[in-house]
């Protein structure tokens, strides 16, 4: 998000609010799901509260500071608050220690999920589509090419570009060694197939 867009968001400009929600809402929802589960109502509540809180606190966001980590922290805190509220017994006459502790995914894991989602959302639509069909739906390059009606070479090039973009966007996770290369981000079911790398 451009600094100007952040300033407009802070000022309550509706187009900037829309841009913020449309651009980051998916990643916020991903964090919400990872913490509160699959309830669509809970996810929707977390998404809504996250952006309301973000707007309230937007004045504290320093100009030029990346918005994603800031938004992530609000989303995670909001989701945990909702989870704690829903798990807490609603009737009285119980000892405090009987309250159920909130056990959610680690902060590191939710941060990874959030970052991967942000990286995927940053892909061009055609590359994102190929990655989704390959990694989520388990389709081969051949299947994807047939499905999209494009040459298999186009599928391979889109896939390669997408992998490089993801690797760049997530480079802060790359260890010094013992990591898979993006070249190893091969589609799950194409090894040995006619369209494997």
């Amino acid at each position, binding site marked *: 998000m451009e600094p100007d867009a952040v300033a407009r968001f802070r000022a309550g400009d509706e187009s900037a609010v829309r841009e913020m929600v449309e651009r980051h809402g998916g990643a916020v929802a991903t964090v919400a799901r990872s913490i509160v589960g699959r309830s*669509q109502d809970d996810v*929707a509540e977390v998404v*809504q509260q996250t*952006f309301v809180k973000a*707007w309230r606190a937007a004045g504290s966001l320093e100009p030029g500071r990346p918005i994603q980590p800031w938004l992530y922290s609000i989303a995670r805190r909001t989701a945990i608050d909702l989870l704690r509220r829903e798990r807490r017994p609603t009737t009285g006459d119980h000892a405090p220690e009987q309250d159920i502790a909130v056990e959610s995914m680690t902060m590191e894991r939710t941060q990874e*999920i959030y970052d991967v989602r942000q990286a995927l959302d940053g892909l061009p639509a055609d590359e994102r589509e190929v990655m989704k069909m390959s990694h989520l739906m388990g389709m081969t390059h051949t299947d994807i090419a047939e499905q999209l009606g494009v040459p298999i070479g186009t599928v391979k090039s889109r896939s390669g570009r997408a992998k490089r973009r993801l690797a760049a966007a997530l480079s802060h996770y*790359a260890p010094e060694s013992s*990591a898979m290369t993006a070249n190893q981000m091969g589609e799950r079911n194409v090894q040995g197939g006619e369209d494997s790398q």
Partner: protein
Amino acid sequence: MTDEQTPELPADLVALLADDAVWEDLDRNVTEDTIAAVMAEVAEAAPSTPKPELPPPTAPVIDLESRRRPQWSSALLGAAAALLLAVGGFVVLNAVSSADDDPSDISFALEATDLEPTAAGNVDLTTTPNGTRIVLETTGLPPAPEGTYYEAWLRTGPDFGVSAGTFHLRGGGGVEIELWAGVSFEDFPLFTVTLQPVGMTESSGQVVLLARLDG
């Protein structure tokens, strides 16, 4: 660049690509509802929007107006704002007033921060032989969510403070809240209200209301 030249990516992140949670699109209705909710906040915070009035109090009201002195100088507020900005980005927006010449009895307005920009409040501090009595009224401060509460502090500055008590407003607010502190506002001239998660003993730093009382 060929695939062979592509930078590395950890395997656990690659595995996440097979998780539908990272692909699921945000429902269109959720998007629109979220935008509407933010814009409702924007409208509520607009300067032309009157702040919500407190319902009639259920306890005797201290007449703060009759005891206020002229407002303190803007230079004082500027200094307070500078101090707070240095440690947390808080903003002092308005003036502080005190009671008569007796420093043991002082009233002042609380100002909002960016965390709750529509909140406001008045505080009446009285030094008694048994401690500092604090009567707090707020408007526009929402009930603390379950798992959190509000905590009032008398502080020497950002680094050290003494709790003056806690409250949550989940009964609807609109009442005077009486708190006590075991220190004097003359020694602890920064008054803040923070939103605290249950289990945290020190200040969360999430200041929702504040005022500075010294010169």
